[in-house]
């Protein structure tokens, strides 16, 4: 069943303070995402991948076109569409578990149940022993684990992840990638994952959508479920990797020369 649907979406931003020109960041984008998919958005930086995510999250509105979630037009952010931000987004004055319990408070979960749900979520991401630690003493990878636990506790239907592991070292990133796939399989959530790494996209996703930059358009799509029958496509992906890399537009600074 189609869960998220973008219909002929355009997004433009003014390029100067005189507002005499606008740059088209997304140019007539249409995407349908089904429940339980793991979709990666890839493309050169500045191609509008993050904009797509912000639109689905409801932080911004499309200049033109329509985005729906379960058939309803998205007009504002909501806990059913949780976001893991690229920057660390935990509140520094609350403990790890306090951060998650605040999210539950926003959802009006009864006070008695909050701690239990939060603990369960932390356990799922392997952070149970850091429940009372303050976020600024955690490493980058741990912070993102807690951010994921926050969405688990909120029971978001969709996880929107904006280059969540890009600030982490290679090893940590690999570990978090595989853990995330494991989580996706267990919890059957829809995940939309923005990344600039082709390898990461191949490793995690069930579908890859490639954007070109200025203006952002969809220039390629790969369905990885067929090739791997629902499993993580780790083996025999060298050809796929080459295919995707060949199609990846080069950075605009080079192209314009």
């Amino acid at each position: 069943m189609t869960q998220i649907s973008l219909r002929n979406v355009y997004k433009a931003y003014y390029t100067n303070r005189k507002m005499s020109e606008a740059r088209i960041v997304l140019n007539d984008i249409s995407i349908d995402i089904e429940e339980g998919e793991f979709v990666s958005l890839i493309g050169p930086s500045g191609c509008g991948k993050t904009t797509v995510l912000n639109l689905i999250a409801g932080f911004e509105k499309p200049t033109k076109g329509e985005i729906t979630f379960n058939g309803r037009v998205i007009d504002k952010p909501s806990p059913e569409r949780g976001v893991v931000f690229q920057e660390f987004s935990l509140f520094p004055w609350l403990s790890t578990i306090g951060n998650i319990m605040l999210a539950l408070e926003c959802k009006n979960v009864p006070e008695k149940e909050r701690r239990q749900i939060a603990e369960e979520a932390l356990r799922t991401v392997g952070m149970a022993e850091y429940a009372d630690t303050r976020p600024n003493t955690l490493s980058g990878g741990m912070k993102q684990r807690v951010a994921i636990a926050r969405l688990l506790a909120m029971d978001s239907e969709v996880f929107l992840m904006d280059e969540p592991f890009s600030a982490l070292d290679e090893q940590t990133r690999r570990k978090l990638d595989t853990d995330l796939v494991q989580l996706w399989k267990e919890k059957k959530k829809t995940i939309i994952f923005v990344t600039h790494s082709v390898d990461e996209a191949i490793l995690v996703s069930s579908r890859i959508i490639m954007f070109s930059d200025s203006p952002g358009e969809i220039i390629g799509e790969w369905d990885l479920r067929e090739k791997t029958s629902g499993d993580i496509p780790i083996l025999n992906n060298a050809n796929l990797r080459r295919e995707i890399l060949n199609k990846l537009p080069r950075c605009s600074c080079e192209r314009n020369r």
Partner: protein
Amino acid sequence: MSIWNNDERIAKQIDTDGVTDGHVKLKSWVPMKILLTTLTFIAGVVIVLLMWQLMAWYVNEYMNLILKFPYPAESIQWAIDCLIDGEKIYGSTLLQHIEASLRRVLIAFSLAAVTGIVLGTFLGYFSKIYSIGIVPVTVFQTIPGLAWVPIALLLFGLGDDASVFIIYAVSSMVITINVSGGIRTVPEVVTRASKMMGAGGAVMFIKILLPYSAVSIINGLRLGLGSAWRVLIAAEMLIGTGIGLGSSMETLRDDLNFVGAFGCIVVIVIIGLLIDKVLFSAIEKTVRHKLGLEEGY
């Protein structure tokens, strides 16, 4: 000097004890830290007293004035005597004058703090309201403290209410501007994260925006209380309230008792310092630590 150098202190301990289990055990540094803070504070106060002493000495020695410029020792002695003996200055003891002034400041400041925090948060959060709302706030803020005197007298006549009104008018605007400025610097990722969590109005303000901008709110309150204290003294001098540090200073001056008038200034400064150093510094430090702005631990 080694007491200023943290590395040297740890290095010495490593030399004597060596490293065990990746840690070095040290003696508590808290008493030394308190001592150092106190010493630096006293050094600052001594500089002020020296400047005063020099000024008085120069004026009395070389400027042939009819009246003597009071020395710090005389004025401080005067204040201490007044406090201990309970001698009446124009009908009330010094303690009663202090009490009257403090009461006015506290009433006005509490009202101003509530107004400033509520108004400032709203203006800071809603950028469309801000561009309109900041205009009147700036207009009121531009009015000098003493220019409120005619307005206060017109509205409340002579007395307590008028001076409370002036203090309120001045400090509420200072607090509003600082609080709205603080809210406006809350990073977008924070507001987005809270919207994504579904944080409604009350939770958003109380649990997210206020803690995040706590440092600038405290600074706003600090500046607000500072200006409240300053404008109070001036207001008491102009509005015949009969009691309060400002009015006692005014009458002492009229009687050419400059030692006493300077003594009042000493009392005013001490109270201001106490409020700023003891109250606000402590709160600020805790908040900075909670927000992860202080180094380490």
